[in-house]
């Protein structure tokens, strides 16, 4: 299949999934779109053949992680840079372009907690808990030592736990049934790091 066809199919069928995954890394939908675009360009202009949608998606996800960790923030589009140079106090952690569906309940709390992690911590947490990659493979993808990955995972989960604790004490703003405290659901120490 020609690369243009693979690209078309990948964006059409898997675009939202890629965008969602990128959002976990960037914390802002517009940044996520830029990251997806950069990753697509990297994969489809590289020498490695991406002649099938499944493998292309895997390559793109991998490229998103490396681009994000290696300097996505430095190379992003000017408009995006302007937004990101705003201080955290004036720019919500999930950014001004967060999907409205996110600005509620536990998703918002999780998005805000994720925003407190460093890029590498975020990448390690996402790779381990979403991609289900073991530490050794994360180290390979990100070009880090396994010890460093373990430290990022530990620090990242600890930070998530710390920042999610207030959410468990928050009172619901309406008469709707309260959602389960997110900290209880996450149980960040329940899973061993492989």
């Amino acid at each position, binding site marked *: 299949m020609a690369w243009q066809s693979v690209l078309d199919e990948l*964006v059409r069928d898997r675009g939202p999934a890629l965008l969602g995954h990128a959002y976990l890394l960037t914390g802002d939908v517009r940044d996520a779109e830029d990251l997806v*675009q950069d990753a697509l360009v990297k994969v489809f202009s590289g020498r490695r053949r991406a002649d099938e*949608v499944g493998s292309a998606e895997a390559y793109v996800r991998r490229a998103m992680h490396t681009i994000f960790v290696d300097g996505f923030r430095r190379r992003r589009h000017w408009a995006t*840079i302007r937004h990101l140079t705003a201080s955290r106090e004036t720019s919500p952690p999930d950014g001004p372009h967060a999907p*409205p569906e996110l600005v509620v309940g536990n998703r918002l709390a999780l998005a805000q907690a994720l925003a407190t992690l460093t890029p590498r911590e975020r990448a390690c*947490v996402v790779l381990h808990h979403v991609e289900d990659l073991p530490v050794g493979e994360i180290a390979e993808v990100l070009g880090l030592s396994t010890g460093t990955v373990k430290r990022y995972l530990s620090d990242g989960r600890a930070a998530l736990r710390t920042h999610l604790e207030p959410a468990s004490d928050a009172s619901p703003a309406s008469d709707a049934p309260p959602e389960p405290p997110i900290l209880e659901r*996450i149980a960040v120490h329940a899973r061993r790091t492989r």
Partner: protein
Amino acid sequence: MSRTHHTPAHAPGDPLGELLTDLADAAGSARGPLDGALVGRVTSRVRRRRAARRAGTTIAAAGAVGAVTFGASHVGGLGGARVTPGASGPDATRATAQPSTAFVGTAEPGAGTSPSDRPAPWASVFDCGLPVRLGTPPEARGLTLEAAPASTVSVGVRDGQRVTAQVPRTVTYALVEHGVVVGYLWPDEDGTVRLEGASDTWVQLDQAVHLVACDADEPTGLVEAWPVVAADVSETTAGAPGQAVLVGEPRQVSVP
């Protein structure tokens, strides 16, 4: 990592994985399907990178950019300088006087106006890792390129000439450090605009560009940038029709 990702990959019973996947699903689905414009932008950038690679580059990095800030000053030590038609070697760029603009070269017709995989028509002047080579005959086919000190770049018709040409909507910049090409700022979008007329007919070029570095050590900070445009001239009172490569006066850009 070769598996496909058509289903969530998180381990069963991993609450954090489930919540993260839920967050990703919400973020992705909230924006709906990505539109064809994204495919177009990606395709354009991919083709340019492939073309740049064929032009002799070994691209190690390319990022979105617009993030480039165009300085208000010219490259240090070059104030008022311009490219000298017919001169050769990087030192030739330090040669002469007012006004800014123009120089030229020739290339295969059509080689620079479509997003094809062909090498850039100006690759013989700005080639990755090599010194700037300005040795082409002084033939601009009646066109001139004017680069204002800040950010504006325009292509127009030289005094006393009449020209019809297809001109890219966006200028490309060759990034040069110590006289050697270290990267490019390529247009993000394709497209040309028709320029037809005599003196004082101008087309201003946009500046949506992305960075293409020649090696892994990407240029950052203040970098010397040479605007370069390849136009297809179909009619001209200054010589024969064909392609004109116009190189403007260098200026500083700030690459983040």
